[in-house]
């Protein structure tokens, strides 16, 4: 990380950049979760926006890839991505795992993907805002210990962020970790610039604070 990099920039907080943590801020036992998924033949990571579903899915997919079980790993953003999901399930080997991030965008085609997976013996691991009916469910939520643990694992903020900032961020965004991290981004930027400019919002020239 270079000087003045904001540890809450999207580069460091996007899914896959952070290890998945549980509500207590402890690392999720990905290996065990992967075993349970294979045994129960399906996993649904369910929770609201910005609660770490994609992050957890990325880690689970990586675990399956290491074991050689990963058939495909797909991010679904629009309804037309249903084509991707169908192709992924159709081409995956029986017994392999297909990870689909964004199950809810499939809409009415979700049943088709699920049926196809069942017929082909493919195990689905999905993220969703609502219940999917898959046998194993991991709910995600936002807690203060989780947020604190994430911040601890981000690049060093040099003491610019304290516990009160975390509590404030979570108070303003109690169910959305992503929004809380964006607020911490703003807090960090304000602090490293010596606080927001007080008084007049007008200035005739920007402060000359080139790097040393």
């Amino acid at each position, binding site marked *: 990380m270079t000087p003045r990099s904001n540890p809450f920039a999207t580069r460091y907080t996007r899914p896959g950049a952070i290890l998945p943590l549980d509500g207590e801020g402890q690392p999720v036992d990905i290996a065990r979760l992967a075993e349970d998924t294979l045994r129960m033949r399906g996993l649904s990571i369910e929770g609201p926006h*910005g609660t770490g579903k*994609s992050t957890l899915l*990325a880690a689970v997919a990586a675990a399956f890839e290491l074991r050689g079980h990963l058939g495909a*790993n797909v991010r679904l*953003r*629009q309804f037309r991505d249903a084509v991707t999901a169908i*192709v992924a399930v159709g081409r995956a080997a029986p017994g392999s795992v297909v990870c689909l991030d964004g199950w809810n965008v499939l809409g009415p085609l979700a049943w088709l993907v699920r049926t196809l997976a069942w017929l082909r013996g493919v195990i689905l691991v999905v993220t969703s805002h609502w219940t999917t009916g898959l046998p194993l469910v991991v709910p995600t939520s936002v807690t203060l210990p989780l947020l604190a643990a994430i911040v601890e694992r981000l690049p060093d903020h040099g003491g610019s962020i304290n516990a009160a900032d975390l509590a404030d961020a979570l108070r303003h965004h109690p169910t959305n970790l992503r929004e809380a991290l964006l607020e911490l981004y703003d807090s960090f930027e304000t602090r490293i610039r010596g606080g927001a400019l007080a008084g007049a919002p007008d*200035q005739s020239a920007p402060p000359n604070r080139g790097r040393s």
Partner: protein
Amino acid sequence: MRFPRFFAKKRGHRRTVSEVWGSVAEGLFHAGLVVAGLVFGGLLATGVAVPEWRINHHFVEAEAIVVGKGLARRTTARERTWEPAIRLRYETPAGPIEAWAFRGGPIASRERALTVLADVSLDAAMPCWYDPDAPDSVVVTRGYNWWMWTLTLLLPGALVAFGGAGLVRSIMGWRKSEERRAVTFRPVTANPHPAIPSCDDLINSPGTVLRFRLPTSGSEGWTLLGIGLFAVLWNSVLTVLAVTAGLDLIGGRIDWLLLLILVPFAGVGVAGVVRFVRQLVLTSAVGNTQLEISEHPLRPGGHYDVMLAQSGSGAFQKLTVTLELEEQATFRQGTDTRTERHVVWRSTIASWKDVQLAPGTRFEAKARLTLPASAMHSFVSEHNVVAWRVVVHGRAARWPAFSRGFPVVVHPVSPAVGHAEPQEVSL
């Protein structure tokens, strides 16, 4: 060679999880479009192009005698048409043949169809062309219908181009590093100012006093149109519902559900009209704001003249012109896309108080704009922007405050020696 994007791709990197399957999806989608276009075009071509080509190149010419004429009647559930036809006798290697040839195509009016045959006399001679593979198939005119060809191939052509461009992009982006993809789809060019927005659209309007007149980045006109359209459409639906309810009442029936719906509908309709009228009056009262500048693009440390021309009527408590630098960052939130904006620098160029305007006149004033020597240049990329603009803030008496922005482009200070040549890329 750059292949065009036919629609604005949803912002955000769609393949951060799986490059391979993202490419598969996009490839399949566009392959599907290509196939659909080819199939559709093929069907249309065989129905239109192939018969026309055969008539013009394959049919055999013969001299025919008109032995009859009439109208072929075609009746469907929706309409009846009449197609003029001529019965011809002509010689073929297999012997003489009599067959009908159509002339002019189906016509809805029988009288008009008859006029097409008015100039054809029985026993008259005329050239004809017959299919040597089916001699009883004969025509009396040849040539190409270019309008039909254009329309026929337009849609499938568009599908093929759309799908083909996307398919090529998918193939070219397959299994490549981020840097390599960036070079493949956005080749290094001889642009002397990479990542700086073009100012062509900002310098194509000459000023009346200064060199350039800047376009505004505001959308007040579109806002007004949008509000107006909404008010018209909503109140149209409301009127229909109200009339229906009224007729029911007159007929002695009370549709409670309809009446219940009408109440909130009416509220929204009235609010829409009020909002439109208010916006219209505001736009009219405040009047047009024009800004001219002596030079463009700008450079750090440069000094420029700007001229403000504000029309309207009544008193303006304050008019202020500022120079601002704004950052814009676009990011994904789930399936949605969000853009955040942040002003990081602002300077007042000039300010005027208690400006009185008579109808038909306008306030004009010049000011001097100075760009700091260390100012950042303008920057634009797919998800991030650093943009300069001149903003006119005003407060008219009895009306809300307004702000109108005029984008400007700032180039970096010119280095002493030339510019870096584009680097050869070895892929």
